[in-house]
């Protein structure tokens, strides 16, 4: 009897679980919870609430920037053609994937500096002026005209009376002022407030459409900053009582609930599925749709971003066609995996696209403040011990070139800088000259009885493959190299606190470079600068002083080239490698201009325009693609794999993109 009782109890427990499991399956299958995903509706959207008539407010006079404004005495630029192709058609969607969900979608404030957020900012919010992608001249965006005072410290902008926020309200000087005021709030937690307080006076509203900004110091960068702020709508920066919102409230309120901008795209709150997907939608009522810079631009109705953390899954999804664009970040994958069946049949296109993205600096930061790297001979020796050709051949399929500049990929790079080659004998000679002549029983060099032993923290498992080669080459020269794996944040902390002898550092490049923050001597002692090695030079300081106040770009270039020569020849880094191209693949259903990518950035933008604003969905190509997907015997023509537009045709300072349409 007892046995039966316990069996019954056990059966009861087990059947409860079975019932629970089935219920759980049915519940989740019924979709009773909030829908998590949906078929993307690809119609463009409008969130317009106010139907403000076109043109300026009638109460504003022509002198105040209203109707009848002639622009006399002001500067403007009418020749700008954007990256778009007039052949482009509107509609359709495009998707890609990112490995980590952005910590915010806000245009300003804590975490604003993620690559996704920077890209989204450019697609949703607009600045007063933009730059011609070829000539780099300033051109209208939210502002039609601008003036620079004779002392070059006061900048005045006239806002386009046609400019509208996504909700239909006009863009005015008040919006610029409110945005500026918000950026002065230290509660935004970016540190940017200090920069604005230190360098600018509070902007002045001269009229509804005219605003002026005064810099406290002379420098060409200040105009760029004032014209480059992404303007936000003042009426969204107010709290419930109509007062300016505090930074803390702003951070929380708009973290994932985007503010409507004046740009061509918008993210609806319900299109953000945290940790998984973000959908951007094209606005059907973008105010600048017919402006010449917008021709052929902003074509996709929907731009979908999926978060996929696993590299292999991302690649499989691309091969299957679940995502549209894929960037090969590893030379080995490009060499060995990029020619799958669909590529051979033309369903997937692959290109190596060269452009002029600044290369930045990457390598072993050598701490020049302490032994042994306070001796230039030791730093030079390290560069001679990096057998980059071996790494390139054995690990990178000869895909990269060694860095030989601080400003690679830009006109600011000094073309006469020599490139280091592996030279063991030369390195040993230098190490001996630095005083490490003796060797201990293990073959390691010593100086005053102290072994030449170095520790190298690294934060990425994939770095181990070349660092072990480096370790062997160091050993041949008598240097003991200990590799120490740490996580990325710890690695940064060690570097930022200058608490290292050598450490791996990767810095992005800029065009034009802002030297005040990276290369002047004072940055060597500033714990939050990127000058981890600690280089200092009086000549560089002097050149930077001249550079910051010289308003002629052509004259600035040789100054930076001289700086490049001085810094490079100090060998503050054991220079690593770079690539001046993107390895990109996509499902063959898109149209694109012959330059494929913007001139100065990755395919996803950040500082320049992403492909998602330049390409378009091509219905004819898509039909051929769909047919070939169904029929394995069909092929679609492909084009040459390498695209060098930006380093051949697009390099000229004279040509405009418009010239390329007719070529």
């Amino acid at each position, binding site marked *: 009897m007892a*046995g039966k009782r*316990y069996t019954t109890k*056990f059966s009861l427990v*087990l059947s409860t*679980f079975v019932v629970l499991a089935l219920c759980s*399956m049915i519940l*989740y*299958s019924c*979709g009773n*919870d909030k*829908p*998590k995903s*949906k*078929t993307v509706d690809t119609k463009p959207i409008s969130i317009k609430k106010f139907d403000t008539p076109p043109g300026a407010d009638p109460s504003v006079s022509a002198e105040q920037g209203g109707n009848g404004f002639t622009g006399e005495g002001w500067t403007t630029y009418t020749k700008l053609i954007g990256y778009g192709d007039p052949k482009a058609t509107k509609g359709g969607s495009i998707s890609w994937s*990112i*490995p980590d969900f952005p*910590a*915010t979608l806000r245009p300003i404030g804590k*975490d604003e*500096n*993620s*690559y996704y957020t*920077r890209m989204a900012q450019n697609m949703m919010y607009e600045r007063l002026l933009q730059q011609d992608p070829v000539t780099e001249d300033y051109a209208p965006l939210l502002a039609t005209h601008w003036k620079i005072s004779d002392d070059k410290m006061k900048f005045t902008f006239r806002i386009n009376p046609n400019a509208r926020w996504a909700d239909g309200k006009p863009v005015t000087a008040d919006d610029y002022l409110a945005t500026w005021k918000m950026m002065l709030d230290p509660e935004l*937690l970016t*540190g*940017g407030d200090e920069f604005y307080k230190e360098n600018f006076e509070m902007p002045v509203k001269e009229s509804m459409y005219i605003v002026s900004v005064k810099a406290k110091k002379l420098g060409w960068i200040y105009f760029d900053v004032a014209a480059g702020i992404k303007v936000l709508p003042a009426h969204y920066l107010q709290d419930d009582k109509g007062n300016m919102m505090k930074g803390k409230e702003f951070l929380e309120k708009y973290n*994932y609930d985007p503010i409507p901008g004046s740009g061509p795209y918008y993210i609806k709150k319900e299109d953000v599925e*945290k940790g998984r997907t973000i959908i951007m939608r094209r606005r059907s009522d973008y105010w600048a749709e017919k402006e010449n810079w917008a021709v052929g631009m902003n074509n996709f109705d929907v731009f979908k971003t999926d978060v996929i*953390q*696993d590299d292999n*899954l991302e690649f499989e*999804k*691309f*091969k*299957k066609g*679940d995502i549209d664009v894929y960037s090969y*970040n590893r*030379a080995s994958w490009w060499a060995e995996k990029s020619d799958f069946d669909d590529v051979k049949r033309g369903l997937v296109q692959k290109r190596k696209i060269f452009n002029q993205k600044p*290369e*930045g600096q*990457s390598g072993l930061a050598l701490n020049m403040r302490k032994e042994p790297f306070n001796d230039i001979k030791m730093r030079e020796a390290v560069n001679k011990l990096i057998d980059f050709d071996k790494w390139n051949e054995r690990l990178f399929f000869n895909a990269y070139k060694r860095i030989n500049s601080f400003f690679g990929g830009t006109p600011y790079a000094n073309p006469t800088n020599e490139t280091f080659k592996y030279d063991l004998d030369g390195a040993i000679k230098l190490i001996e000259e630095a005083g490490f002549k003796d060797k201990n029983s293990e073959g390691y060099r010593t100086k005053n009885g102290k072994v030449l032993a170095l520790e190298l923290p690294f934060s990425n498992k994939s770095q181990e493959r070349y660092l072990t080669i480096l370790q062997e080459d160091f050993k041949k020269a008598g240097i003991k190299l200990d590799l120490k794996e740490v996580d*990325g*944040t*710890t690695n*940064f*902390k*060690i570097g*930022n606190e200058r608490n290292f002898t050598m450490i791996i550092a990767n*810095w*992005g*490049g*800029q065009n034009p470079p802002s030297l005040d*923050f*990276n290369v002047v001597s004072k940055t060597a002692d500033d714990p*939050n*600068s990127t000058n981890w090695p600690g280089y200092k030079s009086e000549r560089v300081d002097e050149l930077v002083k001249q550079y910051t106040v010289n308003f002629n770009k052509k004259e600035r270039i040789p100054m930076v080239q001289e700086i490049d020569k001085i810094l490079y020849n100090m060998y503050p880094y054991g220079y690593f490698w*770079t690539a001046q191209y993107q390895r990109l693949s996509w499902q063959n259903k898109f149209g694109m201009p012959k330059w494929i990518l913007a001139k100065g950035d*990755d395919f*996803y933008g*950040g500082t320049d325009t992403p492909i998602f604003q330049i390409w378009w969905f091509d219905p004819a190509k898509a039909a051929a693609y769909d047919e070939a997907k169904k029929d394995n015997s069909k092929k679609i023509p492909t084009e040459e794999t390498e695209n060098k537009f930006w380093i051949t045709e697009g390099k000229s300072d004279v040509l405009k993109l418009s010239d390329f349409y007719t070529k």
Partner: protein
Amino acid sequence: MTFYFIRRFLLIIPTFFGITLITFLILQIVPGGPLEMEIMKIRMGGQKGSESGSNSGSTQNIPQSAIDELKKFYGFDKPIHERYIIWVTHLLKFDLGRSYVYSEPVWDVIKSRFPVSIYFGLIGFILTYLVCVPLGVYKAVKNGSVFDFISSSLVFIGYSIPGFAFGALMLVLFGGGSFWSVFPLGGFRSDSWDDLSFSSKIWDQLRHTFLPVLAYMIGSFATLTILTKNTVIDNLGQDYIRTAFSKGISEKRVIFGHALRNSMIPIATGLGHFISLVLAGSFLIEKVFNINGMGLLGYTSIVQRDYPVVMGILVISTLLLLIGNILSDMIYAMVDPRIRFN
């Protein structure tokens, strides 16, 4: 025995605070916390990982005032013990704090991941019992046979393959990217879920469930199957079984009516941990299948230094584990009349 369980429940309190205190201290002491991560983000921005690219740089330095503001934001302007007391005070008001990364209450972040974890945890749990118990019994009855040998080999091969590696292999083979298109390539459901009919939804959910559940379960087959087999074999050698046979009772009745019933006792004790299913999940499997479950959340929270979420998960997992242990003992006492806790 009631007193024993009351005492066990009371012991949860010091154990819980001990665990949270130690974890809290470790998180605060390890180098490279949220403050450093934030400074790094301001400085470097980050981009899609590339072996040839470098990180983007900010055009400005970070003033000390900004670092002080950040310290205040993360609470690092106060000593550790004060921070712990503040955290505990909030906890006692059922407030787990706000996520540094998502800028929303920790509870909201965590609870959004529960359904996925419960779903996979529950199905995995049930299927493991449904497959392994009968298999273990059959292996015990057929001990030493060819079937026993082959099934043991398969079970141990499965045990030796990490679930995430198995999952990745299955996705490549059956996900449709490289070979056969049988299952979807990860995810919890299709994007077109809302437009599907009821039956299509069930089919879609099942297709998204099959491979991850297989990956979740592959390692646990061996333990439960062999435990069942060995306990059944042990029981088959007992005097009462011999007695049952000598009384002429059929083999089927002896095995299922007597041996199996007693063999279930150690297996049933594991049921107490059923409660921990809300936290089931392996970050590696969830990463491979792109499923937003608790495993992945726990892992990314540590990587992103989202300490409030890390502590929130710790609070829930600690409580569930401690309660699950007591429940296991209760089930043990319930199913085995010989057991009496004092």
